[in-house]
């Protein structure tokens, strides 16, 4: 839930509760006042009635013409209490029930006790109460909505620097060597946040740069010693009468140094792509490139008795460094050969929006999600574990994406424009 929605919801919830309780209190207070007024008047009418009765001795129905105003019934029961209660009276003129308040008491008229009910209509006061309450409610709703919009406005304005920072941090890419530029804010907390963000980003950038430089320097510095090992091994194999044991040892040294050299070269390539050291960018026509590469690798295909199918169903062109495009294709095709089975197939499909290289092969053996990470090796021995990492790095650098999926017993790797 968004911050703004959350605060608004809280505000609305609390306001409604508070406003409703105010309205309720107001209603009861008004009602109480109205009753008090009516009851005072009923009292005075009772006094009038009593004084009339005491001076005249009896009560004539006719002397009070308002219908149902005063009712009296002979009653065996009597006490000295006065009881107020709500009741409704039938209005003959308007043919409707009218809410009223009545005062009931018992008194002696002549020899008998009577139950006397004096009534007073509440119609006027009821109307008053209704109008008052609805007016108040209307104003409350109005106030609430005005407050709601004002609050939203204010919140939006107040939080703007925060959202600004958020979106900038979100779009910030560590790999691009750019400064994180946050707009200054007049609010202390946000200014503090920006400062902390700046510090953190700078630290991360520094660490990242150090790490990158370390990889690069380490790989770089290793080249010369590896060259020396290679040279010495080559010298060594020139000697005659090597024993089998010696040959075996030399072979091991040679294999290892070749591996180191391939790994360092791979790592160097990765850091170079990352550092954008390949500045040339050209429109590369992948149809031609793929055809050329397939032809170049024909010997390897034949050697492993692989059936190669090439389906050209579209034209794919992309702005990329031509050397890296070459490496991209080479790595993918090499991969499809290396992890293939003898007599297997490789199926290459080129579409308008990318291409797909599929090959038969044993099950992956590793989590497909980690496939494009460095040093993730399947079962094939002797690989550096960098081939697909390089593929991914190239894709990332030029707005492409590489996906792995398994379908119809084929391992697919699909290269297509990265969706934003």
């Amino acid at each position, binding site marked *: 839930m968004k911050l703004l929605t959350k605060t608004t919801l809280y505000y609305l919830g609390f306001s409604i509760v508070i406003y409703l309780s105010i309205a309720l209190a107001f209603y009861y207070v008004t009602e109480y006042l109205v009753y008090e007024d009516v009851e005072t008047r009923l009292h005075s009418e009772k006094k009038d009635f009593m004084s009339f009765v005491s001076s005249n001795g009896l009560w004539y129905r006719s002397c009070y013409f308002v219908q149902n105003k005063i009712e009296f019934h002979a009653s065996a029961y009597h006490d000295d209490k006065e009881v107020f209660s709500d009741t409704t009276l039938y209005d003959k003129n308007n043919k409707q029930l009218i809410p009223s308040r009545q005062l009931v008491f018992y008194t002696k008229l002549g020899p008998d006790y009577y139950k006397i009910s004096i009534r007073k209509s509440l119609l006027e006061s009821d109307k008053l109460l209704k109008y008052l309450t609805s007016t108040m409610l209307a104003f409350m709703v109005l106030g609430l909505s005005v407050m709601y919009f004002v609050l939203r406005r204010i919140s939006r304005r107040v939080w703007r620097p925060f959202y600004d920072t958020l979106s900038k941090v979100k779009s910030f890419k560590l790999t691009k060597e750019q400064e994180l530029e946050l707009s200054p804010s007049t609010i202390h907390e946000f200014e503090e946040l920006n400062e902390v963000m700046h510090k953190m980003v700078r630290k991360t950038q520094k660490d990242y740069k150090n790490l990158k430089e370390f990889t690069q320097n380490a790989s770089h510095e290793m080249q*010369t010693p590896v060259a020396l090992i290679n*040279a010495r091994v080559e010298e060594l194999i020139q000697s005659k009468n090597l024993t*089998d044991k010696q040959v075996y040892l030399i072979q091991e040294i*040679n294999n290892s140094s*070749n591996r180191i050299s391939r790994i360092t070269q791979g790592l160097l390539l990765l850091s170079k792509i990352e550092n954008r050291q390949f500045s040339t960018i050209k429109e590369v026509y992948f149809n031609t490139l793929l055809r050329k590469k397939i032809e170049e690798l024909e010997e390897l295909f034949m050697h492993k008795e692989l059936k190669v199918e090439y389906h050209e169903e579209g034209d794919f062109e992309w702005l990329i460094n031509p050397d890296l495009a070459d490496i991209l294709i080479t790595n993918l095709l090499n991969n499809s050969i290396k992890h293939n089975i003898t007599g297997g197939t490789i199926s290459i499909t080129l579409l308008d929006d990318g291409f797909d290289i599929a090959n038969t092969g044993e099950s992956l053996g590793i989590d497909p999600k980690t496939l494009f990470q460095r040093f993730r090796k399947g079962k094939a021995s002797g690989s550096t574990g960098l081939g697909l990492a390089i593929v991914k790095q190239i894709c990332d650098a030029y707005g492409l994406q590489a996906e792995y999926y398994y379908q119809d017993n084929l391992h697919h790797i699909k290269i297509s424009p990265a969706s934003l």
Partner: protein
Amino acid sequence: MKILIIEDEKGLSESICSHLSKDGFLCEQAFTYASAEEKINLYQYECVIVDINLPDGLGFGIVEALKKLSATTGIIIISARNAIEDKLKGLEIGSDDYLTKPFHLSELIARVKSLIRRKNFGGETEIVFNEIKINMSRRMVYVNDTETPLSRKEYDLLLYFISNKEHALTKEAIAEHLWGDNIDSADSLDIVYSHIKNLRRKLVEKGAKDYVHSIYGIGYKFGEH
């Protein structure tokens, strides 16, 4: 034929030197920029092998100085820097070849020889090894003057063998020479084997001696012994 090796890593320089000496080259070594500069001003070299990263300067300076002193000297840059810009810069200022470390010595030798051939005879050359004759400009191979058609890879292989005759070559070095370093598949070693088999068969069929000797566990050697 005199060759100057400018490389600060003494061991590597020594290895290159001893390898080239076996092929009859006269090698001199320079370990610093200053001593290299002095040497190229004093002597004439057929070919100079120069490292870019020297303790007291960049090898590019030597290349430029050499170009002014003697235009016929072949220059090969060897560098741990694989940056394309460096490669282009090196070739632009007049070096003839660029090899990235780590490399195989046999590859360097092949490049040195091919460079010297190019410099001396302008590519119009024939290489003769006993009964085998290679016409470089027409990329044709003759055994006892009979034309022996070879595939492109077999031709490259033969040339590489002859450039490194009497040197033991590792399978990896051969594979890398034939396919460059973008092939890192173990399968390529098997293909090396099948190419060598075909080359041997074709040469022997035309009456050449079988000069390819396999060295158990290591690779191959081309030569009389």
